[in-house]
């Protein structure tokens, strides 16, 4: 993986429906050379369909896909030069791990030499720490190992873009955390372009250079993880990122607010303690690294983070005041909002 084949991928007004079911509508997105773009959205948001449109497994109803400035609408999946990790069914059960990894290299398009196959398979196996399993059948692996191998099947190639469809979703938390770091490292080593799809906000926040948020087939916001977190353009986007989740409350709930908007979004860091109006502590959740407070404020539940030292007991009263909350109109769109 000495030299790198990287490319810019551009989606222009891409749309796809299955019968009446809209999967992707009017999607515009530019994936820069060497960037790690994460598409974030719940199940059914159109993530898989977007990847399949780029790889050529589905034909778009409207719009184009451009890879490296080249319109690939009439190209076959093979001609598009993409590698894809599928959400499911990634390994061929009738082949060994080694043959699974070598499978893409043996394709008539790549026609890699034997020694080169050997070298690449060994290299990728080492990178993914599966060298000791190379001669196993694919069926004899644990879930985590299978997933490494299916990521490896993409990594042995040097495509214009890697497409990954929730590759970590079936793994347990620890393995997920390990592989997240691993993938990020591999990406920075290769400098390749990567489009990664997930419903997990932690994966989006930790790995992405850019995050795209999908809602019902629409790309509703695209930007750096910080931008998406700090400057979401709707209630929907604001709710996608942040743990504990952002509190969405009526704007006129707080006396101090100039109520020019429908709702406000209050992240834990938007809550100041010790001034403002009283709230009751309903529950205290110790998570080890953080302590969550579940507050009752005028009949509304608010989840907040306790300040250091956790000075609050269940049943006690604490004064809170919003600071620089996000303001939304009645449709849930972001509006400029200020606080007195």
């Amino acid at each position, binding site marked *: 993986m000495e030299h790198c084949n990287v490319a810019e991928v551009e989606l222009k007004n891409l749309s796809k429906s299955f019968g009446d079911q809209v999967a992707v509508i009017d999607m515009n997105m530019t994936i820069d050379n060497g960037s790690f773009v994460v598409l974030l959205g719940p199940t059914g948001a159109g993530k898989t369909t977007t990847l399949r449109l780029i*790889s*050529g*497994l589905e034909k778009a109803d409207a719009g184009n896909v451009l890879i490296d400035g080249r319109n690939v609408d009439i190209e*076959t*999946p*093979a001609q*598009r030069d*993409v*590698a*894809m990790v*599928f959400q*499911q*069914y*990634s*390994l*061929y*059960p*009738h082949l060994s791990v080694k043959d699974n990894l070598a*499978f*893409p290299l043996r*394709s*008539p*398009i*790549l026609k890699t030499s034997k020694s080169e196959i050997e070298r690449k398979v060994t290299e990728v196996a080492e990178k993914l720490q599966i060298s000791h399993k190379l001669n196993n059948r*694919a*069926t004899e692996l644990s*879930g985590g190992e*299978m*997933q490494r191998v299916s990521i490896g*099947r993409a990594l042995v*190639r040097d495509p214009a873009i890697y497409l990954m469809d929730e590759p970590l979703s*079936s793994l347990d938390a620890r393995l997920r955390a390990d592989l997240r770091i691993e993938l990020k490292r591999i990406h920075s080593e290769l400098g390749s372009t990567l489009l990664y799809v997930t419903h997990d906000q932690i994966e989006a926040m930790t790995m992405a250079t850019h995050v795209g948020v999908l809602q019902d087939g629409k790309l509703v916001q695209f930007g750096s993880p910080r931008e998406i977190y700090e400057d979401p353009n709707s209630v929907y986007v604001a709710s996608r990122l942040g743990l504990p989740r952002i509190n969405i409350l009526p704007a006129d709930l707080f006396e101090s607010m100039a109520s020019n908007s429908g709702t406000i979004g209050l992240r834990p860091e938007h809550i100041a303690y010790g001034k403002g109006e009283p709230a009751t502590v309903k529950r205290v959740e110790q998570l080890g690294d953080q302590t969550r407070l579940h507050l009752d404020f005028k009949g509304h539940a608010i989840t907040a983070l306790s300040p250091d030292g956790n000075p609050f007991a269940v049943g006690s009263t604490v004064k809170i005041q919003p600071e620089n909350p996000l303001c939304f109109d009645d449709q849930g769109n972001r509006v400029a909002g200020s606080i007195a």
Partner: protein
Amino acid sequence: MSFSVTETSSRVKWISGTLVITYALITMIPLVWIMMTSFKTPPDSISYPPKVFYEPSLEGYVNLFTTRTRVSPETLASLPPPENFAEEIVRNRDMVIAGPSKFSGRFLNSVIIGFGSTFLSVFLGTLAAYAFSRFKIPLADDLLFFILSTRMMPPIAVAIPIFLMYRKLGLSDTHLGMILLYTAVNISLAVWLLKGFIDEIPREYEEAALIDGYTRFQAFYKVVLPQAATGIASTAIFCLIFAWNEYAFAVLLTSGTAQTAPPFIPTIIGVGGLDWPAIAAGATLFLLPVMIFTVMLRKHLLRGITFGAVRK
């Protein structure tokens, strides 16, 4: 003693095992009887009460493969000593071997027609099933129903049209004719069975191959076929058993060059009376190819080998 909800107790296992084995033994009695008869001498085979213990003889097999003529005791005495065991057995009955019988030729016909039509049915069936499973085919459901409907009446019901058609086309009593006929009967079973198997293979496997630079045909060949091996093997066995055992059309359409073993075996009549050991010997040999074929493919018949590499 502990009880488990999912594991059957050893007593239940023992009882069901005994039942299955008993049933298997009962169904095997006729088979065993035929094999035993094939090693009897003609008098032993028709003795009453039937003999369970007897001195085995190869006379049935010798009679199956030869034609014999009766000679006078003087001629018999003037002959040179018998060259092999077959000659010896025959001379004990005051006969000499006149030549080979037609059995091996008929047996070979069965092999050619049985395996030929099985190969053709499975080959065409796999391609059709793949197409029905993966591509958008106009009226696919109607076509599949039509294919199935070819089996909704007994094939022999169309015997007369086929007989006339084959005579006109010159397909009567030819290997090709019988292969085509059995393929036509088997193809609907093959398409339906194989479609079920191929439907179960996730498309993602082929799609991954397509993205990796393989053509549709290569993806089919390298990914779908190995995973459909189980289905192909069991379909092949069903097709072979039908073609191998088919009797009615074989009687109707073949008489010489392409005659298969089923219509031939009952025509083995000994000199004076039915030669039961020879008939039984023919039946026994006739059983072997299907048995060997099934044993060879039995690994594939145990399903579940290829299903399981799926992330859950």
